[in-house]
């Protein structure tokens, strides 16, 4: 228990940094593939904080990580398929060109 507790602070800090990088990427980048990677980054940052906090609150956090990973895998499959379809349609994966939902 002792070593793990000592790492809790740095682990959460790293998690926050990774999450912020992910958010910044989603906000700033235009390429859908990069966006997608940033979302994965955010998910894994959350995973990291789950694992870290599991040291404190028991195994449920670790179980949650498995759920997140499963969902992320499914999301990757669906998301990449959508990106593929978008590329076939637009010959581009730049978000600037994809604005069909404009009001």
């Amino acid at each position, binding site marked *: 228990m002792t070593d793990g507790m000592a790492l809790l602070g740095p682990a959460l800090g790293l998690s926050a940094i990774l999450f912020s990088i992910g*958010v910044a990427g*989603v*906000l700033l980048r*235009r390429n859908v593939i990069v*966006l997608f990677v940033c979302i994965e980054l955010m998910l894994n940052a959350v995973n990291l904080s789950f694992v870290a906090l599991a040291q404190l609150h028991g195994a449920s956090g670790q179980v949650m990580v498995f759920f997140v990973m499963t969902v992320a895998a499914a999301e990757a499959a669906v998301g990449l398929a959508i990106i593929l379809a978008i590329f076939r349609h637009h010959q581009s994966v730049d*978000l*600037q060109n*994809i*604005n*069909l*939902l*404009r*009001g």
Partner: protein
Amino acid sequence: MIASRWVWLAVALPLAGFLVNGALALRRAPATRAVSIVGPGVLLAAFAVSIGVFAGLLGRPPHEPHIVTLWPWMTAGALRIDLAFQVDQLSAVMLLVVTGVGSLIHLFSVGYMREDPGYARYFAYLNLFVVFMLVLVLGANFPVLFIGWEGVGLCSYLLIGFWFTEEANANAGKKAFIMNRIGDFGVLVAMFFLWRELGTLNFAEIAARAPGALEQGGTIVTLITLFIFLGCTGKSAQIPLYTWLPDAMAGPTPVSALIHAATMVTAGVYLVVRTNVLFAMAPLSSAVVAGIGALTAIFAATIALRQYDIKKVLAYSTVSQLGYMFLAVGSAAFAGGIFHLATHAFFKALLFLGAGSVIHAMHHAYHATHSHEDAQDMRNMGGLREHMPVTFWLMAIATLAIAGIPPLSGFFSKDEILASAFARGAEMPIYYVYYALGVLAALLTAFYMARLMTMTFLGPNRTGDEERRHLHEAPWIMTGPLLVLGILSAIGGVINLPAFVGGRHALESWLEPVTAAGAAFARVELPHGTTELLLVGGAVLVGVVGLVLGYRATLGRRVATAREAPEEAGLARVLNRKYYVDEIYDAAVVRPVVWLSRVVLWKGVDQGLVDGAAVNGTAKLSRGLGWLGSRVQTGQVGLYVVLFLVGALWILRAVIR
């Protein structure tokens, strides 16, 4: 008192007749025979019931009215209103007049309306009218009376516009209905006042409580009576609401006889007598009632002088005679008003039915020759005496009666009214003016009636050579009721013979239990001895002079037919156009109301405020907000993410706090 318990039958029988005739009217095939039996049959049965009720009262005249409660109608707090009929001396008299004269007019209608395509509908309406009229005169409290009051207005509207395919007829119906609504407002307000002041709407309790609860001659009782009288001016066609009655002649002639001469229009007089204690307690209101009555009597009589439509003359005559009745009840001669109501029902119904018989003959003559002349214009008549002697002689009786020639019925009733007004003059001198107006109106009445009879029945015939051969007397189903009414017009005075011919004022003492409450406050002592005989002699002289003048003025002149008649000039034109009252009302009331409704209420309030601001304004506001919202929907995922983030942080902040 057993008979009184069956009084509801008098209402239920015509109601059944209405339902049967109404059902027959809905069928495609005409059921002339069934309608001819059911329509008058239920009325005759109701008349039989009325006689039974009357006989029951006659046997044991009670001072307490007999209240027949059918069922409780509405109960709310202290307010309890029953559907109850009041059987007393007054309602018994009205019951007899309504069902009796009503039966005769129903019989006449069988002959008059038989060939009309709306025969069953006609009798359905007529039966329904009698139902409501009986509810009106029998109601033991104001709300029940008001059902009848409104119901007869409805039936009047339906029957005036009976031939509704012509717009003028439909408009006349609407005019009558709207004018009556103005009066009905007065009755409603009076009801509210009475409830507030006395806590009851039952006539018997009003008569009992009013002397203790209201100040005699006070503002409250004056207001109440004036509001009641407003209703009476509408229903009974007095100044200023009388203009609907002449237009109401658009309906079939028997309707004019039943509704617009004998029964419905006398409802106002009945109501004043029914609430006589209130009017007796308010001398000012009584003076107003008598004054309006006297004014209306003279005003309408002058208009009748220059009318050419035979029914219009009779219509203005009715307005004038109703004025007499109000002069009577305004002079505290409540029994005198009811007396004239009854005799007027006889002779005016006779005059209208006689006119109907004439119009029937004229119409057939013109129909046979495919001529399109006016069958009601007296200028197209003349010399009809040879062709329809029965009608002529019976109408002559009615003419003498309305002119006040002894010993016919109108002489006694009119004389009593004039004597009452004169007697009241001792207390309030203004009544001497009313008396003078009444005498003058009597002169004019005799004049225009002589003119009507002369133009219609005497002198050379102006119908046309071809048409003349088709003129014929009406069938017996029409002359029969005329004959009965003729007898009643002649001897109707016996119900209230005055002392100077050996009578004992039978009707007056009969009504005494009803009028006693009012008599405690205002009592009219008829003059006796020389004064009485002078008044009577004067009234008779005026009637004879009027008749002779009217006869000579009309017979001496050559009358041009309606087609060739020159346009009138001067006073005659003013009278012929009815003092332009309709035009004045149109300019002063109708047009401003229409303008207000169209420009302010419709275009301004409805289209501008309600439609424009409220309904469409809400829609425009939502659309504007939606437009603003749609500006955010750029389709750029990046922006969505920013907004999402901002939102998430905002919620996070709220949660952490």
